[in-house]
């Protein structure tokens, strides 16, 4: 990673003053209640930063309620270096709703600041005033948000944009980038909307310029180009759409619904279709029907929906029907916590089938991998005639980041194995082959017929319950899982290859782990992490090698049971240090770093 240059983003007209505190990266949290425009703030700040070529990550946290008084926050972390995670704490808290923001102050890092709406003293009881709770090691910037908003818009609306102006000034960020975002955001509505919002922004900016000489500044790298913004759900949907998806069947469920909504919009543009069906059982049934009929198909859901699909996924295994099932995990069990993140569905993804029921389980770690990974999922499903469960999660699905989506590559990586014309006379749907994959005719194609079934069956597909037939077909179904390895990406080692502390994690937790490793490294403790999008099957040799080269293994994951750790223990016979991280919020890199350091201490003592 290149060391940061000293260039600053401040507009050239404004000399970089020596009084400005330098920041390597900045996290800003907007906190408010419904109607405060918290999400808009996040989008505008993110848009501005992305247009400046910064790397960033946005995380929204909504309250449980439908609407009403629930609190919500948006946090934007931006940097000129790679942003792996939401980090620990924030630099800036923008308290749009004063009272609700008080408990967020604990997350503001020392030396950071709080922007709050200043009001006439005594207006509020002391306990409810944000200003009164700002501790001495944090800068408090009072801005008369309501007054200035009123001045700009003639109403109470616009406090968020006033605060944005203040933020822009205080962190020496280029005004034009923000104005441009305001234009994008409000220009479409009406010129009056745009005008009053620019006014609000300017009032906030000018107020601070007038009252607060002190400011901060972000260190940046030299060459920065505007970057596109994606959420994991966006990337996943577009990955599939760009990879030949033709049919989507689904049932709404937080936090997966967005994927269906994108597909509903985009698929008909290319002759594809999205149907919202009556439940998740129908969704997976429709997908299997469509894939059986030769079209790439997918569904997306969360834990409750995946549970309902268990039986049909078993059929996909038995009858060798391709299917891609995206599970955007949320807190469980049961209805659980629909708006909170957890990595709790690994067990059901791996084992949630009656009988011996091998299935492919994948878990992307980054927004980019949502895009590339879902393409691999579609490929594997089609080529190996198997269900693929793709475990995203709420944090990965909803976080917004700057990312680069790769050009289409390896278009023909995995395609359906078709029977040779010569084979047709004796066509067998479930022909025994070395790799377990049988050549596949689809309806409408000439040369053979078959009936697929969830009953155990002979190679030609006829029901049969003899012991040797069952063994032969079970082996075939498991053999595909081995054969698939040729098409799988290798498991990568990140970090210090020679470190004795090895970390294995899965899914979206990787970002925090990478950042935690960097923090530990700053403390002089080296570590490495094995990154694999594949949970089952895996390149087992890479894992074995990694374990052999590590003195201690740490397995951090966001669930109580240590679901991945259990798999690794049973598959590889290791005895790892397990980190079962409680759900709800993104994983703290500092906690990871601490654990790495602790383990290092144990190793050396």
């Amino acid at each position, binding site marked *: 990673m290149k060391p940061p240059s000293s260039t600053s983003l401040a507009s050239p007209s404004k000399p970089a003053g020596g009084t400005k505190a330098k920041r390597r990266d900045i996290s800003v949290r907007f906190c408010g209640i419904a109607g405060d425009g918290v999400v808009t703030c996040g989008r505008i700040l993110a848009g501005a930063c992305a247009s400046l070529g910064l790397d960033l990550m946005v995380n929204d946290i909504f309250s449980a309620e439908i609407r009403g008084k629930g609190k919500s926050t948006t946090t934007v972390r931006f940097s000129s270096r790679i942003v792996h995670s939401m980090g620990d704490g924030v630099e800036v808290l923008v308290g749009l709703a004063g009272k609700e923001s008080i408990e967020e102050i604990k997350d503001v890092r020392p030396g950071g600041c709080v922007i709050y709406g200043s009001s006439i003293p005594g207006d509020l009881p002391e306990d409810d005033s944000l200003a009164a709770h700002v501790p001495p090691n944090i800068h408090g910037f009072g801005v008369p948000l309501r007054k200035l908003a009123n001045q700009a818009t003639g109403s109470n609306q616009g406090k968020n944009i006033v605060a944005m102006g203040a933020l822009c000034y205080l962190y020496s960020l280029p005004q034009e980038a923000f104005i441009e975002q305001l234009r994008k955001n409000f220009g479409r509505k009406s010129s009056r909307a745009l005008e009053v919002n620019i006014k609000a922004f300017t009032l906030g900016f000018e107020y601070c310029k007038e009252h607060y000489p002190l400011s901060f500044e972000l260190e940046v790298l030299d060459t920065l180009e505007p970057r596109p913004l994606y959420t994991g759900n966006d990337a996943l949907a577009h990955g599939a759409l760009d990879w030949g998806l033709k049919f989507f069947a689904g049932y709404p469920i937080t936090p997966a619904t967005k994927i269906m909504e994108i597909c509903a919009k985009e698929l008909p543009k290319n002759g594809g279709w999205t149907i919202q069906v009556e439940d998740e059982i129908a969704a997976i*049934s429709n997908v299997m029907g469509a894939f059986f*009929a*030769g079209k790439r198909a997918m569904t997306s859901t969360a834990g409750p929906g995946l549970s309902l699909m268990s*039986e049909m996924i078993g059929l996909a295994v038995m*009858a060798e029907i391709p299917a891609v099932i995206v599970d955007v995990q949320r807190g469980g069990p049961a209805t659980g916590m629909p708006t909170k993140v957890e990595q709790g569905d690994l067990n059901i993804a791996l084992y949630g089938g009656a009988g011996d029921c091998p299935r492919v389980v994948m878990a992307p770690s980054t927004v980019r991998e949502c895009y590339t990974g879902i393409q691999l999922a579609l490929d594997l499903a089609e080529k190996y005639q198997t269900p693929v469960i793709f475990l995203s999660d709420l944090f990965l699905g909803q976080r917004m980041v700057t990312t680069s989506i790769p050009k289409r590559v390896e278009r023909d990586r995995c395609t359906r194995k078709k029977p040779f014309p010569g084979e047709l006379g004796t066509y067998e749907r479930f022909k025994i082959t070395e790799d377990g994959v049988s050549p596949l005719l689809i*309806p409408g194609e000439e040369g053979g017929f078959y009936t697929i079934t969830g009953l155990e069956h002979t190679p030609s597909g006829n029901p049969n319950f003899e012991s040797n037939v069952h063994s032969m077909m079970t082996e075939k179904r498991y053999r595909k899982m081995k054969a698939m390895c040729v098409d799988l990406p290798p498991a990568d080692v990140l970090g210090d290859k020679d470190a004795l502390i090895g970390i294995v994690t899965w899914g979206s937790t990787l970002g925090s782990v990478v950042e935690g490793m960097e923090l530990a490294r700053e403390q002089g403790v080296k570590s490495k992490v094995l990154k694999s999008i594949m949970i089952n099957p895996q390149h087992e040799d890479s894992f074995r090698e990694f374990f052999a080269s590590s003195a201690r293994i740490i397995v951090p994951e966001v669930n109580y049971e240590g679901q991945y750790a259990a798999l690794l223990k049973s598959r590889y016979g290791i005895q790892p240090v397990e980190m079962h991280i409680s759900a709800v919020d993104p994983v703290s890199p500092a906690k990871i770093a601490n654990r790495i350091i602790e383990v290092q201490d144990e190793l050396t003592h």
Partner: protein
Amino acid sequence: MSLLTKRHVIEGLQRAKTNKAQQHRDVLPTWCPGCGHFTPLQGVYEATERLNIHPKNLVLVSGIGCSGRFPFFVKGFGFHSLHGRGIPVATGIKIARPELTVVVAGGDGDGVGIGGGHFPHAARNNIDITYLLLDNSIYGLTKGQVSPTSPFGMISATTPYGNIGYPLNPSTLALTYGATFVARVFSRDRDECTEMVTQAIAHKGFSFVHVLSPCVEFNKFVTYGSIRETIAPLPSDYVPDDHVHAIQYAESASPVYHGVLFKTAKPTYSDHMQTVFEKMKGSPTN
């Protein structure tokens, strides 16, 4: 009473011409001799021949049950899915490949019991598939438990003191759900069954054939004999174009009417998809 038995099927097989859907594959029907399900099977053989449907374009979908074995006995592509899931599987197939002829066969337990949540939606969306409900008012494959269409009071393995639930009427359900073709037929009437199946497959939209198809092995209450006592053809002047009228005739318990209860022309789901595609072509967002 002349029951349909395997002999009929074997005769059918012998008459079959190669490459026609009427010819089943290497599997002989495993049903009990006299089982009602033979008649609609024969109906599919003859309907697909009459309609000249090439077996490569024919997909038979089913759930689980004696009735669920249907696809194994038909030449074409078959999808023997899970108990109750024939309809959503068929919906996926049809939306993905509207050019295929898709027929679903299933039992009363399969379609009105466990699969009862799917039936309304394929019907209301007017998915262009044919659904043959082989109703024997019993769970045949699991050896004789009550079903949602079993009469009140019926003794079965799970209702030793008599069924205390009231039955649902699949024909009425199909009508209420919005099926655009609804017929009822008695499995004893082989010609009418063939005729109904043919009309149903030919119909554009969700077509439903309610086959009263006795289980000679396990149902001692709903039998060829008991059905014959209550069944009657629809009045000769009956016109199957009025929805409420159709429900009234479908609901009638004595007599139980057979024939085409309802038939209407309505754009199918695929038709509406086409309309959207057309619109998209004209739109600049494409």
